């Protein structure tokens, strides 16, 4: 009876070890998925809002197409930043290269991905709203393109800061 118990205790310990080892990559992948998902969703919402406003302006002033398109695309970068962090992480956690992390390192990857995931989501939505306003401004006064472009770009600063923290952490882990 005692032997059986001891044997099963070691087995359990081994299983736990194996599990924690394998969980590392799972945690890291959750981080990767969040970075891609949230930042991507934010950008999709932002660019979508911009596109609807742009279509309205284009119906009246089709010659503004190129300028309006630039304004529409501005909130699209957060999705790319998320993708960027995701790819750098994938290259280090044994999916596209590197080695599989243990559980603790996996959680670190997850934490490292969070800034661009959350800030990407929120900033893209707000940048989209600013883009909509800028597209309206451009529609009323096509000469203000420089200023109209700058307003949404101000929002993006915070996505860039989050990207920096995420990517520097992922690269150094």
């Amino acid at each position, binding site marked *: 009876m005692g032997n059986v118990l001891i044997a099963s205790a070691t087995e359990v310990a081994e299983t736990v070890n194996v599990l924690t080892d394998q969980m590392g990559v799972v945690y890291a992948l959750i981080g990767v998925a969040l970075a891609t998902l949230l930042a991507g969703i934010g950008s999709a919402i932002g660019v979508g809002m911009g596109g609807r406003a742009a279509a309205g302006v284009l119906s009246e002033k089709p010659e503004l197409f190129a300028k309006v398109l*630039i304004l529409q695309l501005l909130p699209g*970068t957060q999705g790319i*930043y998320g993708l*960027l962090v995701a790819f750098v992480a994938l290259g280090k956690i044994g999916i596209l290269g590197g080695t599989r992390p243990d559980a603790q390192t996996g959680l670190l990857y997850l934490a490292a991905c969070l800034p661009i995931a959350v800030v990407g989501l929120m900033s893209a939505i707000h940048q989209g709203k600013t883009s909509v306003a800028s597209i309206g401004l451009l529609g009323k006064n096509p000469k203000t393109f420089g200023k109209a*472009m700058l307003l949404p770009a*101000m929002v993006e600063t915070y996505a*860039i800061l989050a990207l920096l923290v995420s990517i520097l952490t992922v690269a150094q882990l």
Partner: protein
Amino acid sequence: MSVVPMRKILIAGTAGEREALLKQLQQGRCFHLSESPAQAPGIPDVKESLSRAEKRAQLADNALKILGEYAPEDAGLFASLQGGQSLSAAGWEEKAAGLKRSAALAESILEKSKQIGEASARGARCDLLMESLAPWQGLDMPLDLTETARCRVLIGALPGIWSEETLRSLLSEAEPEGNYGLELLQGDKTQTPLVLICLKEKGPAIEEALRKKGFARPIISSDKTPEEAREDLAFEKASAVAEEEELKAAIRSLKKERENLQFLYDESLLEADRLRALSRTGEGRRSFFMSGYVPAARAESLKEELERNFTVQVELCEPEAGEDPPVLLKNNAFAAPTESVVESYGLPGSGEVDPTGIMAIFYYFLFGLMLSDAGYGLIMVIGCAIALKKFPKMSQGLKKTMTMFFWCGVSTTIWGFLFGGFFGDAVDVIAHTFFGVAPEVTVLKPLWFAPLDNPMRLLVFSFAFGVAHLFVGLGLKGYQLLKQGKVMDFISGVLAWYCLLIGLILMLLPSDIFTSIAGSPIALPGWLVSAGKILAIIGALGLLFFAAWDRKNMGLRLALGAYELYGVTSWLSDILSYSRLLALGLATGVIASVINAMAAMRGKSIFGIIIFILIFLLGHVLNMAINLLGAYVHTNRLQYVEFFGKFYDGGGEEYIPLTTDNTKYYHMEESNNG
């Protein structure tokens, strides 16, 4: 890098010559008309002529659009780069003689287009009527027949599907004997068309029974049988179609007149410009007066020209102090393309220098650093160079933009090679995948270092570039202050900042925080650190006590000084803002590498090569487009917010000369006498 000096010009002349004079000024392209301070009562016929000219431009534009619809111009992809056809001033006058004819032509095109619309509406109406006739085909009596000598004829349809039996049982109540003729025509799910003939006296009862079930007469009525009516409609439709075609052909035959219409449009625009200027001149009964600005270099020759050709009095004088002449920037070929960047922020106001020259250097530098891929850079360089060479007549604005991206491309290429980016890591991926080079070997080595291997290093350099950029901005502020003779402001607002910031940087460099960012400690000699401390203290005290040196109240002065000192936080955030240089540079490189990795996934085979080329092309086009956008936007931001924020307000009025260059299709050559 400078603002072109302007001279004020006052012109007085006889009313009869004012239009000819404006024309000459327009061809001279250097006269900026200022709003006359005492607004003239206005020449009554000017407004009318102006609206006539504007309408004529609109007319020509509409006619061109219609012509373009029926006889499309075989314009290439690069039509917008081609630029207008050139005409000498004399050739312009000659062509202007045919304006009346062109205007009539434009009107006839508009009229024809209207007729096309009508004919097409007629055809559509025939279609609609024929459709509603369809259920009655096969009926051999006129649709509007209601009765004969003794009989009542009911032609119409019941909603829904009816068979003859159900119908007869419905009618058995009204006419139990069944003394009527009933014929059901081919119907569909929605209605059953039918013809019923009965004796006149039975008519009302039967009709009533049918009506209860929703019986309705045909929508279309005709004294002909449906067959004949359909033939008539088909004929009418055919004639409408023929008329439409004929009109379209007539418009198409006018396509060789396109040039004349384009000229009509351009000339109408120029005329409207002249009239708009005219409405802003002072006007007496026999004379007129206008004032404006001319670049100093052109002033004397313009005065001489005007006095030779017209009975006018021309006075030239220097703008008075407090008067802000319009601003025209003049820069060398390297910096001039970025003038539009300055313009869209705002032209230098009074007392400000033209920042274009210095900004251009940083503009190209920062743009290249953010895009930092030699492949993309070369595409920009080659693309812009070809476009500039092949289409020398493209508009000035476009030419400037192209030249700007050419220089940005050069910088991007240099940075790309420094960081080892050529379409990402394309050279290595191709060598490893298709040429069997061992994966450990790096083929294209960065001349400096690869950012992804050592991002912290590039971060530190980004901050360093930022500090340099901002220091130059502060220096420009100092230059402006000294130029205006404000020495005290220079010492308290610029010199003190330099002391404080340089001192702080010297103190920060050997600290632990900086070591952890840079990765390796930086050892500075002890005396330098102490000097830094002293500098920082001097700077801080200078700001505290002298930022508001002109205030008498000491308490207020110290409070304002403390507030100025608090501005150090904005310096910190400005410098941190340059971290985007690293982020955007990494974005280009990493995404490009991802594209290459995906492209090379199928390995070394024919199929693999095809896949590689496809993914490579598509991926890099997308990546280049999105990163070009990013680099452009964020370079502008760094210039506008961080750099200009240090010294530049930009409230100058734009120099807009009366010119013949606002045309769309034709270009008037500069004449020697004009």
